[in-house]
């Protein structure tokens, strides 16, 4: 099947900085595609070139095989990372305003219900909570019943409950056979929502595939974590097990959990608070780049 979006060798250079440095990928129709990476990796620049908001220095972007044109504008829904709406405009008025920009729109009542805007329809958009505002901006992105929806870090700054509610909303939208392009630096979010991901660092894509494929490809191991205090004084165990220091604890990648635990016990390392878990995308990022995902 033809991809809905295809990107070929995309570059964006500012005076001193190469923000995006030769990015290529394709997004099949109907999936949630995640662009992952830390702040400053080039995710937003990439997605804004795809949206037609900024011009690439070089490279090719195609929507349904054609360069971006007015048809794309009418078929794309966009939710930016930071957006303000006109002052003094209520939620209902903002929806009506944006509905007037498009030749075809979804019924507003349906959107209001889907994005749960009913309780604050007549409130000034500046007086909404973080979660309410993101739901309004999502509703605006959906107003033209788009085929593809760009979501640039949509849950940044939301509390855990609002974030989970927002994920639920995105799952329902995906179920309507829409294509989503999501950027995020929350690996959990990508894990929950994305069918395919591309991991970006320093303006390049460093890995691509489904989350499962990527984890399988890079890890045959299980992750064992121990508090730092348990292992600190035991150099033999640290070296033998190649333990890595990560955010206040040590992580050991093990392809044989029993053997690893035996070594720890032989070295008389306390096993209090020991945890065993499967690798996550966060581990993958660390493995690929050698640095932590969070800035």
């Amino acid at each position, binding site marked *: 099947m033809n991809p809905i979006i295809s990107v070929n060798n995309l570059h964006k250079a500012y005076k001193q900085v190469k923000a995006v440095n030769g990015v290529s990928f394709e997004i099949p129709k109907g999936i949630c595609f995640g662009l992952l990476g830390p702040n400053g990796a080039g995710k937003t620049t990439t997605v804004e070139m795809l949206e*037609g908001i900024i011009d690439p220095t070089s490279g090719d972007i195609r929507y349904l095989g054609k360069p971006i044109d007015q048809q794309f504008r009418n078929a794309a829904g*966009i939710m*930016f990372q930071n*957006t*303000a709406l*006109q*002052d003094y405009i209520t939620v209902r*008025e903002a929806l009506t*305003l944006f509905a007037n920009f*498009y030749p075809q729109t979804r019924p507003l009542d349906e959107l209001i219900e889907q994005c749960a805007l009913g309780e604050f329809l007549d409130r000034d958009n500046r007086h909404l909570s973080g979660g309410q505002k993101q739901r309004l901006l999502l509703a605006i992105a959906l107003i033209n019943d788009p085929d593809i929806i760009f979501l640039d870090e949509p849950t940044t700054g939301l509390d855990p409950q609002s974030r989970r509610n927002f994920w639920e909303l995105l799952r329902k939208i995906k179920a309507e056979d829409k294509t989503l392009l999501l950027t995020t630096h929350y690996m959990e979010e990508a894990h929950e929502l994305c069918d395919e991901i591309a991991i970006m660092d320093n303006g390049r894509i460093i890995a691509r595939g489904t989350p499962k494929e990527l984890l399988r490809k890079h890890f045959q191991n299980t992750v064992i974590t121990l508090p730092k205090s348990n292992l600190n004084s035991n150099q033999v165990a640290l070296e033998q097990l190649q333990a890595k220091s990560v955010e206040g604890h040590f992580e050991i990648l093990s392809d044989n959990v029993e053997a690893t635990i035996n070594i720890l016990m032989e070295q008389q390392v306390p096993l209090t608070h020991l945890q065993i878990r499967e690798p996550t995308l966060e581990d993958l990022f660390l493995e690929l780049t050698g640095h932590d995902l969070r800035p």
Partner: protein
Amino acid sequence: MMFQRFLAVLKARNMEFMRDKSALSWNLIFPILVVMGFAFAFNTDNGDLFKVAIKADGDIPAAIQPFTDLKHIEFVNIDDIAAGIKKVERHQFDMLIEASSQQYWINEASSKGYMLERLISSHAANLNKQMVSGEAIRYVDWLIPGILGMNVMFSALFGIGYVIVRYRKNGVLKRLKATPLSAFEFLSAQVLSRLWLILLFTAMVYIGTDIFVDFRMLGSYFTLLLILILGTLSLISLSLIVAARLSSEETANGLLNLLSWPMMLLSGVWFSLEGSHPLIQHLASLLPLTHLIDAARAVMIDGAQLADIGMNLIVMVIMTIVFMAIGVYNFRWE
């Protein structure tokens, strides 16, 4: 579809303005208060300086010299004798002297004219007296077109320039760029929204101040409306240049002040530039507000017809076209 998008932005901008209570009161109450303040302050005719216009075409003849040497009289050189006589009729000049014909004009109803006549009979007795009559123009009558023009200028410059820069800074423009809305649709909605609001508010200020000070309006309301529309459009277009690319409100504020202050001082809002250095007068003629105020003043005070102020109208049309072309051409959403 294009008209629908334009109307949607126009409506949103109108709502935004009408709900901003501080901007509303600034646009409405401030000019009325200024006019009332000046009407009160200049109610008593306590000036001790005489203003005498002279048409000399060269050196002052010796016969008049003793009179022109007198202190505490402001002498203004003029070229147009008919315009000078009109100003004597309106008490804007206390006396007019034409050196070549050895004549002087005073207003029979002017106390200052009477005093000057006593002075002239003792210092330049050979001049022939000509009497004119006419009601005095109060300073407030002269000031009203200036205040209305100033209000239009601030509302046009800051209401367009500052607002678009703020939209750009906080991401409103970026969000709109991501829709099928074109820059032309967006900008024309901003211009028309501001034009209509300025017309509405100027009419309200006009009526409000007229109730309090009952000022002079001799010309046609249609002509005045035409001047107001063209003046507003030329000022809005000027602010589009400022708003074309800036994304810093501080810089925009500085630039808008840089444009508005010279107009406040040189466009004849508060005082006439008559008799000032020709360079200043040339500079003033480059400012759109000068043409708005000059034309409005001519219509309101002198009852000027459309043809009399044709040049002002033409200049404002040219300024509108040039400024708008530069502003629209340079406009960037981000």
